[in-house]
């Protein structure tokens, strides 16, 4: 099956500092892929660059193909059809993504008019249908309301409704629940997975929360310092992480049941993009780093049918993990 979106060698630099250093990622139709990593790892920039949403001074290279057609450097008219039409995006802070002085109906109808061939009453009916779909009670009347009349969770539902206006094939959800309370986060995640199933839409879920990604995605890519360092089906990644950074992330997460253990913190901090270490970017923080790690940056290599890891010490790291488990 040909992928819906394929990203190859995507690189982004701001003022000479590389923030994305060759990202390769493919996404099948209807697939849910999670992107995890710490702040500054390039999770959001990957998709902002893919959709041409970065400021002009950003230097973008590589290739992003949607159904085989190149998006990087595509004419504005074509990008306008893709953005919001084939690929929609929702963000962490939904309140700032809505216009506070326009009613929800105006904003929803704007999106519908841009991406759907609907006229007059049909637009309004569709706007109401979308609000119903995302679970806003009393949708008909609430269309007249302004953004501030909704709670944070409801505003995020409205953002999802707007994203769905163009019947997208892919929804990029960038930290969609980070600003929400735990019980509301559970509601939004459930809504996203229901909609995804019903519309057989692909989704990229960007999150720093490993739990959120693990539960809602088929496949997970772990990013570190502008690169994907490990890619695997969710259940495998969390049961048996191979890259030392992925292991570190999972070990740093306090358990909610079972015995308490000391958290395995990763020492040091994320490298500054302007002073990226030579070789593997994680080597300075890695417990398993050996001499060759400083020489060349490892590339993603297959370790089984559906898993790739960018680490020359992958075998050693796997053994170390099993050794720890045996103790």
């Amino acid at each position: 099956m040909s992928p819906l979106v394929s990203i190859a060698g995507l690189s982004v630099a701001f003022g000479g500092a590389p923030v994305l250093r060759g990202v390769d990622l493919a996404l099948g139709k209807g697939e849910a892929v999670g992107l995890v990593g710490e702040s500054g790892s390039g999770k959001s920039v990957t998709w902002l660059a893919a959709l041409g949403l970065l400021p002009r001074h950003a230097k973008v290279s590589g290739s992003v193909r949607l159904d085989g057609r190149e998006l990087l450097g595509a004419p504005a008219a074509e990008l306008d059809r893709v953005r919001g039409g084939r690929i929609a995006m929702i963000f962490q802070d939904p309140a700032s993504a809505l216009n506070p002085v326009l009613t929800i109906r105006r904003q929803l109808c704007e999106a519908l008019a841009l991406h759907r061939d609907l006229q007059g009453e049909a637009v309004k009916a569709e706007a109401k249908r979308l609000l119903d779909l995302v679970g806003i009670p009393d949708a008909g009347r609430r269309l007249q309301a302004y953004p501030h009349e909704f709670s944070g969770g409801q505003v995020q539902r409205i953002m999802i409704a707007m994203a769905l206006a163009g019947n997208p094939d892919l929804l990029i959800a960038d930290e969609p629940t980070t600003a929400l309370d735990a019980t509301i986060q559970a509601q939004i995640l459930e809504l996203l997975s229901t909609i995804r199933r019903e519309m057989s839409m692909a989704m990229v879920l960007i999150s720093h929360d490993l739990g959120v990604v693990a539960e809602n995605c088929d496949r997970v890519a772990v990013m570190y310092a502008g690169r994907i360092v490990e890619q695997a089906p969710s259940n495998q990644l969390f049961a048996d992480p191979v890259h030392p950074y992925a292991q570190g992330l999972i070990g740093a997460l306090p358990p909610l049941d079972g015995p308490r253990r000391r958290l395995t913190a990763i020492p040091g901090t994320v490298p500054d993009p302007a002073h990226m270490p030579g070789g593997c970017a994680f080597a300075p923080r890695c417990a398993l780093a050996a001499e060759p790690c400083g020489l060349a940056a490892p590339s993603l290599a297959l370790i089984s049918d559906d898993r790739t890891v960018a680490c020359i010490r992958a075998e050693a790291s796997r053994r170390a993990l099993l050794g720890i488990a045996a103790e």
Partner: protein
Amino acid sequence: MSAPLVEVSTISRSYSMRSGMFGRATAVHAVDGVSLTIAKGETLGLVGESGSGKSTTGRIVLGLEPPDSGAVRFDAKPMAAPGTAAWRAQRARMQMIFQDPLGALDRRLPVATQIREPLDIHGHGTPAEREERVRELLRAVELTPAHGARYPGALSGGQRQRIVLARALATKPDFLVCDEPVSALDVSIQAQVVNLLCDLQAQLGLTLLFISHDLRVVRQISNVVAVMYLGRIVEIGSADDLFARPEHPYTQALVSASPAPGRRSAGRIVLAGDPPNPAARPQGCAFHPRCPRATARCASEVPALSAVGGDRQVACHLVTGAQTRDAA
């Protein structure tokens, strides 16, 4: 269990809020009859969603805000009146750490100067001794004197939170209130700070009130956990037991909503409805409009926090001691 260092008895605090420019002022009960005790050297975790009153509770416990009713006792003595010498002496023994370290630091002063500030204010030791103490504190939070010469802007988020921690420890406090201290940090840095906090607590015998919405972090660090909903404690008990067998329907939903790697969302309790609004507190049990098990009684009668066996206390009409525990 040793003697309690902090005893909070039925504190309440309400604010008046206007809706709109000409709206009538309504009372918002941020904290409503909260009682807690924290034993010396132990950690009490306070969890709840936004608007549950956990931060206000922390501020009252620290004496940053007076309660409308109720009292806080620190080391078996009542809190001194604000502004007095006794109050200052008491305040040197208790410190606070906030969520946003950049907001808590002055961007135009080197961080070492900021760590020294509490020592200057409370007049601890000679200038040379203060300098030595600053170096000692930097070492305690695993930073070097070179970090001390920097400005907050030149440090990473995790390093800044260490500086805030060092400053809070400067006057050798017995009690720390930590309000979402690691929420703004990345997972790997969060683990560093949590480990550091645990180590320092063990070394210095600190007593902590740890406020967070993150159940995992709270469990990691706390001996006892209290769950708040709309200004009241709905469940309190020992950390491991509480998260393993939550009794209150709200705690059950919170634990169930906490995503875990390796567990699919099957069987998750998803609460209907919006987060509660403290300005429009429902009658009876505040949780009843969202509770999947609510009965008619829940809508009219406020449940009291009562013991249900062991050290657990629950405020719910449906949870009454041993028989519910066996049934669950």
